[in-house]
């Protein structure tokens, strides 16, 4: 095994130890807080807050992390990108830790998004396959949507509560529940949580995420990332729960997900997929439980959270082993492998029993508590309990399918020549399974260490956590357990029939996954269509849009905002003024109507000359000279270029009403504005200064020239720069040879 594979194990391991040594403190009811101001002006701190809830998560993340990394150190040995894998997995772990120990909601969000990115890279790890790329994108987009919703929610919480520190917010009862922003806040936060934890109807990305290497599935998609949503709900529970909205939203989403997922699990033939759906079921269960406030439900939630992480990670790793050693994960191909791989079989068995909820395993206690909690819910105990019953029964069946049949079933021939997995891959399943058993027998240790503090941090110390014990006496939960086993065995026996039925049922029912594809296709085609309409590639359309916008902006504003009508009493308009007017007018008309370039050019010349006369009459000799010179040059250039240009196409008899409208509209608007602007006199403060300073201070009698080369020399400098640049550009254009156009 390479250092690239082992380094992460060391990191995760040491972090686990570091968190573990905090257990006594936390168990004693204290909390730890560390604050470092990050972006004070936005109220963002890197503030770490360690209580039961965050510590439990931290331990799961680092502990299971260490085991999974050890496992993958072997699983991916020799893979060219093992280093990248380790990098991503480690950074994911760190992000996840940051997420669960952040007290500042914005910091939490930062880590939240970091888990999204790293998981994107992990799911797409086998990036050569289109499937992996698609699943990665799907996961990214779904959790991305949630992330953005969460961001909005976080901002609203921050502005409503005046702080982003969760510990402070939770210390202000009702600050959110009683604010007007409560509804949007809850919806947005839940949107984040549900997408991350794959609650219906955002669930479909999770099974696809199984495209990732098995260790990733074991880690992200059972133990950690998908639980981030659960963590968020638990973390915000104190300040958001206790309302019908919260109760029903979580109950319905949870229950539906739970049942749907466990049914879908039964449908799968790929063991990994089956596990994926049971994970969904577990998340649904946790969501449902967190909807409530009773000590029962929360204790159940805390316990179930832990036990599920233990056995689910173990089973994923087991399936990974089967896959690695036998080359298949198909339920129909794996029988009686126990002899070939006894340790795996043992670990699988123990984990499965915990999953199925048999005593004396922790799973049993969790199940009992769940039933107790279900009965205690404030919503509809009957339905909730029913949901749990169905789900748990299916768990029993799935446990059999995943962990019993492949190893012990005689109904098929074991695959020959299969060896037991190497020890690094076995450590994980064995340890995790053992823990499940150990805590089953000594539940109190777990309770005092983690469960009670967790419960405390969710519902406070007002109501202590319910006691974890194997034998709670003869009560309703016990009967429900018995019913569960009976039902479970029945289902297991009838697996194949049921599966067949389910398969042809689901074949016919619409699939969310296709919905996703349609959505993607829709975005693609929709945006394409829109772009075809807007960015047509035809200059004419762009011009119409641009001029049209200008016209609209000016005309509308003129109509809505400007007051008064311009006067039209031509004072002191001389005869020659009219003559110039006529010349310009006829010149422009000539340009408009002619199909001869030279006639057009001549028309332009007339306009230019006439305007030059305006400059002559109205005392602007410099401008007149410049105008005439430039006009001449324009003619020269045009006449030269025209030698190699085609003559004007005869204007086709297209009706150009739109063009005419825009053009005349702009003309009219310009005139009106100008008439209004020139109605009064102009402020000549600047000019007066120039007139008085021109000779005494700037030693020039030609005020215009003095302005150009002295008062506003910077303008002139920029102006000659423009001329030079134009020359450079034109030179470049004319000297770039056609053969160089092939590039």
């Amino acid at each position: 095994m390479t250092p690239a594979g082992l380094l992460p194990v060391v990191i995760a391991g040491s972090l686990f130890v570091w968190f573990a040594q905090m257990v006594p403190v936390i168990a004693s009811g204290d909390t730890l807080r560390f604050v470092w101001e990050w972006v004070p002006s936005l109220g963002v701190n890197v503030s770490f807050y360690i209580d039961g809830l965050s510590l439990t998560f931290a331990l799961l993340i680092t502990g299971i992390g260490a085991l999974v990394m050890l496992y993958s150190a072997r699983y991916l040995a020799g893979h060219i990108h093992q280093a990248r894998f380790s990098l991503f997995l480690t950074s994911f772990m760190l992000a996840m830790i940051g997420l669960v120990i952040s007290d500042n909601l914005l910091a939490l969000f930062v880590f939240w998004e970091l888990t999204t990115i790293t998981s994107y890279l992990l799911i797409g790890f086998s990036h050569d396959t289109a499937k992996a790329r698609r699943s990665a994108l799907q996961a990214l987009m779904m959790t991305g949507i949630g992330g953005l919703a969460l961001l909005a929610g976080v901002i609203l919480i921050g502005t409503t509560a005046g702080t982003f520190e969760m510990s402070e917010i939770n210390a202000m009862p009702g600050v959110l529940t009683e604010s007007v922003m409560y509804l949007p806040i809850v919806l947005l936060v839940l949107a984040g949580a549900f997408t991350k934890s794959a609650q219906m109807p955002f669930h479909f990305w999770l099974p696809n995420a199984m495209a990732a290497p098995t260790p990733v599935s074991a880690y992200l998609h059972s133990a950690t990332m998908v639980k981030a949503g659960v963590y968020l709900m638990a973390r915000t529970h104190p300040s958001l729960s206790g309302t019908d909205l919260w109760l029903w939203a979580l109950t319905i989403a949870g229950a539906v997900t739970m049942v749907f997922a466990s049914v879908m699990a039964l449908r799968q033939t790929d063991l990994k997929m089956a596990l994926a759906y049971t994970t969904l079921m577990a998340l649904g269960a946790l969501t449902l439980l967190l909807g409530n406030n009773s000590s029962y439900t929360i204790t159940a939630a805390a316990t179930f959270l832990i036990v599920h992480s233990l056995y689910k990670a173990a089973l994923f790793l087991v399936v990974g082993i089967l896959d690695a050693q036998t080359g298949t994960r198909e339920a129909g191909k794996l029988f009686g492998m126990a002899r070939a791989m006894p340790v795996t079989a043992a670990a699988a068995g123990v984990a499965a029993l915990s999953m199925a909820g048999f005593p004396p395993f922790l799973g049993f206690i969790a199940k009992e508590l769940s039933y107790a909690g279900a009965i205690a819910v404030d919503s509809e105990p009957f339905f909730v309990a029913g949901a749990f019953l169905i789900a748990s029964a299916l768990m029993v069946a799935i446990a059999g399918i995943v962990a019993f049949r492949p190893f012990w079933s005689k109904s098929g021939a074991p695959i020959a020549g299969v060896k037991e997995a190497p020890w690094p891959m076995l450590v994980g399943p064995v340890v995790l399974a053992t823990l499940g058993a150990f805590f089953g027998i000594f539940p109190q240790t777990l309770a005092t260490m983690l469960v009670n503090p967790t419960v405390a941090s969710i519902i406070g110390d007002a109501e202590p956590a319910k006691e974890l014990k194997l034998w709670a006496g003869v009560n309703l939960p016990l009967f429900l357990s018995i019913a569960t086993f009976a039902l479970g065995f029945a289902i297991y026996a009838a697996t194949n029939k049921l599966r067949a039925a389910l398969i042809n049922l689901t074949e016919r029912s619409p699939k969310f996954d296709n919905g996703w594809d349609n959505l993607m296709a829709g975005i693609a085609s929709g945006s394409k269509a829109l772009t075809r309409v807007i960015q047509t590639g035809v200059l004419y359309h762009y011009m119409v849009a641009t001029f049209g916008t200008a016209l609209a902006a000016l005309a509308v504003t003129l109509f809505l905002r400007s007051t008064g009508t311009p006067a039209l009493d031509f004072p002191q308009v001389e005869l020659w003024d009219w003559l110039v007017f006529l010349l310009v007018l006829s010149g422009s008309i000539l340009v408009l109507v002619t199909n001869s370039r030279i006639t057009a050019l001549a028309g332009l010349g007339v306009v230019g000359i006439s305007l030059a006369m305006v400059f002559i009459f109205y005392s602007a000799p410099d401008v007149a000279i410049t105008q005439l010179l430039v006009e001449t040059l324009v003619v020269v250039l045009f006449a030269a270029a025209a030698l190699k240009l085609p003559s004007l196409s005869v204007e086709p008899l297209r009706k150009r009403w739109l063009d005419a409208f825009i053009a005349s509209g702009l003309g009219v608007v310009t005139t009106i504005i100008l008439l209004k602007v020139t109605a009064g006199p102009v402020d000549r403060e600047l000019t007066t200064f120039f007139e008085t300073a021109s000779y005494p201070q700037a030693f020039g009698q030609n005020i215009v020239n003095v302005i150009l080369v002295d008062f506003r020399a910077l303008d002139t400098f920029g102006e000659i720069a423009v001329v030079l640049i134009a020359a450079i550009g034109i030179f470049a254009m004319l000297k770039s040879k056609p053969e160089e156009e092939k590039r």
Partner: protein
Amino acid sequence: MNSVILRAGARLQVVLLLVFSAYMMLRGHNAPGGGFIGGLIAATGFVVYAIASGTADARKALRFDPNDIAGAGLGIALIAGLMAVFWGDALFTGQWLFIGATETEKGLPLSTVLIFDIGVYLVVLGSVLSITFALEEAV
């Protein structure tokens, strides 16, 4: 353009227009004119010549690559603007020197402003010729 008359006229024009352009530029500060107008007038001379005798001759007559003339012109204008520094003034502050100034006569004024205008003159001359010559060579 194989016109004897135009060629003959063009040569005369170049000379006259060069003189005239210099005149227009130098007097610009006190009467209509200035670097831009001067530059344009000078350019027209060479443009006529280019049309009459072809750009090859025109480039020969001009001696320098018009692009370089323009570039140098911008440089000169820039220097004129930056010169103010040596007098510790802000950019483009005019610095004046009156040669042979007496109480009565103002003397011959030399100034960074004039240098600046020369820069303008050169940029315009160079750019316009660069453009027209390149175009003439392309058609």
